[in-house]
């Protein structure tokens, strides 16, 4: 998967978690938590969905890597490159 594909998948997962999430004004370098009102349970859902789809394990101490959309893509790119 390339960066754009990973980005699309992330937005799709977030939209499944919160169907009212509005991505139009989303700043990819600012925390998702603040912009989309995601809480810690939502991040857990993202982690569990990534594991289900790609068998990808995100250890708890690496959750901060998922803070912004760009940091998510940066973190996932090497892990999902070969898919």
């Amino acid at each position: 998967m390339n960066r754009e594909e990973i980005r699309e998948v992330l937005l799709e997962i977030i939209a499944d978690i919160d169907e009212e999430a509005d991505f139009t004004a989303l700043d990819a370098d600012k925390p998702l938590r603040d912009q989309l009102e995601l809480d810690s349970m939502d991040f857990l859902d993202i982690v569990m969905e990534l594991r289900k789809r790609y068998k990808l394990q995100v250890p708890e101490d690496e959750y901060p890597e998922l803070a912004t959309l760009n940091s998510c893509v940066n973190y996932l790119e090497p892990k999902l490159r070969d898919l």
Partner: protein
Amino acid sequence: MKPTYDAIVIGSGLGGLTCAKRLADADHRVLLLEQHFQLGGLATWFKRGGHIFDVSLHGFPYGMVKTCKKYWGKTIQSAIVQLKNIVFDNPQFSLTTSFSKDDFIRLLQERFGVAEAVVREFFITIEGMNFYDDQKLRTFELFERFFPGRGDIHRLLLEPISYANGSTLDEPAITYGIVFSNFMNRGVFTFEGGTDRLIGLMEHELKNLGVDIRTSARVERVVLNKGRATGVMVDGKYIPARAVISNAGITNTVDDLVGREVLSENFCERFAQVRVNNSSCQVYFGIRKGESIPDIGDLLFTSREEQFTSEALRDLRTKSRTFSVYYPKTRPDAPPDYTIVASMNANFDDWARLNAHEYAQEKEAMVERCLADLERYLPGVHSKIDVIESATPLTFQRYTLHSKGTSFGTKFEGLDISRSLHKELPGLFHVGSVGIIMSGWLGAINYGVIVANDVDSWLRDT
């Protein structure tokens, strides 16, 4: 029944049900075992004399809307409705509130004379609290910082939460802040259709996902092989599984299902520090069919105690109790039914040490006290009541099997034991009321999701 499972969940409280649901969502083969004949754990109900009595429905925070929508679906989510009239009545103050932040900001200024800046700062402080904050600060100290010497305000802020999760002034302030902020979000909510409908819908969801469910199936023990959980023994039969999730109490899990002898010394020492929370007493009143009662509010926090203390709240002959009043709107599709559930906090040992005669006497006296208090809000109600039932900590223990009949799991230290059990005994996880914050309906469901994530991670790795 399948010969083997990915995950066996022991106990069908809201945490166990939700954990089973999430694991099934993640395509694991799940077996759910419940010792009682009915699912739900303490999220339960019973039928008596044509009435349905809800044991722990009372009211939960708005967060249940999002949580149920995400983890249980829209049918369950859409049945969540607000309880608008929450009543306080005690020698220090009497008021009606929506139990929301806006209303509390108003009340604290208008009724209690606190400056707006102080009230706002208090809310900013508790809303900013999270699990990783300082755990040394006690709830009493938090209250004193903002409202020094104001026992009446301490009562307003803590009494409802004491009934919700057994909190005292001595608990870590973060446990108070997290739970109180949850309620203050938008107020108090309930499930339209009652506990029976909620649990019925959950059971339906699980069956649709292929979860096998067995009731009246009491697990004798968790089977371990070289320190790893490999399955359970139930009715003398071994059922293997790659992961076992106990939704029994954490103390029951360690002492009854596993045994301390398999644990390391360090873990045993930490486990020995775990205090179970207090239990409850309840008295249930059914109003004769055809009769009705006026709307006196949905949830009443009443006390004839001059001052609030946590000890007095739990006293054998406490003068403090809540009345959860269920009007026909609770079950709009059923014939009109009015029921009232009086709830009190209670110490297990106070009731356990009574002999049979004393126990019967104290129980009868408790019913009379509740009835006398109820008459103050509903004069003449006595003549309309056709069913009275009561429960003590021993009743709660009998039905839930919880150590000392605890209604709210454990104090704060239980959370660490619950979270680290699977590191001590790989393949064995715990979900259930612990640490005060993982308690109540919302806490239990969210904790079910958190633990399901751990289990899923384990199952994908092994």
